[in-house]
């Protein structure tokens, strides 16, 4: 969680979130995602990017194309070096927010993804991995 991979996109400003979600859109289009699937993964990326920026003190995202042998998908890995999340179950609840937002970021991003995994360590950071299969 310390150093960012070479192809990671930074998430430190609100402009960088826009750049990251446009990069996600391009990859989703290249993979032949339907318009609804493109919109879902781009929206999930926007929510998780904002979380990394606001709560994680800025982080980064890596975009990978993955395959399980039958189908292709897009995997996004969000990492930040922020304070971490003490109670993940609570943070995943709809409407729970520590930042004055609507509290839909994590729970909403999970609903918009095919697979969702979150790990967090206090004072080290948070890592969220989402995958959307075509």
């Amino acid at each position, binding site marked *: 969680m310390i150093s960012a991979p070479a192809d990671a996109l930074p998430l430190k*400003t*609100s402009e960088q*979130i*826009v750049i990251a979600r446009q990069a996600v859109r391009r990859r989703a289009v290249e993979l032949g995602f339907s318009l609804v699937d493109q*919109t879902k993964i781009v929206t999930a990326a*926007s929510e998780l990017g904002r979380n990394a920026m606001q709560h994680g003190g800025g982080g980064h995202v890596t975009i990978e194309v993955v395959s399980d042998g039958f189908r292709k998908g897009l995997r996004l890995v969000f990492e930040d070096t922020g304070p971490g999340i003490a109670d993940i179950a609570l943070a995943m609840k709809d409407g729970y927010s520590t930042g004055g937002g609507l509290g839909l970021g994590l729970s*909403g991003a999970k*609903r918009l993804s095919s697979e969702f995994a979150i790990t967090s360590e206090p004072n080290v950071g948070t890592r969220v991995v989402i995958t959307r299969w075509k």
Partner: protein
Amino acid sequence: MERIPILKMGGYLLVSIQVDMHDRLAMQLQDDLTSKIAETCAQGVLIDISSLEMVDSFIGRMLANIAAMSRVLDAETVVVGMQPAVAITLVELGMSLAGVRTALNVERGMELLSASRDAAERQDDLGPR
């Protein structure tokens, strides 16, 4: 500084969001629109989002805030032109935009605004009961 233009037409304010908005730009639009409603005594606000390819919880909240603030300032807001893929995603995200009036396109949105203005004027003619 980067800003989304607000056009005044008669008693209405018109906004067409044509860029992929970052959060500060969305907040700026919310502030600008609220001051403009008070400044121009606008009766209606029409926001066209047909060019938006994504509405996340931040933009959704901005639209809900604009609708609520304009109501307090005696103006009606209508959001028009949401793309179907955006609507599907927004609901799955957990936002239903309760309290925000919507219309399929600009034309229907304008009809909605003028209908509610006519209704308000009729109410005024009747006077206090």
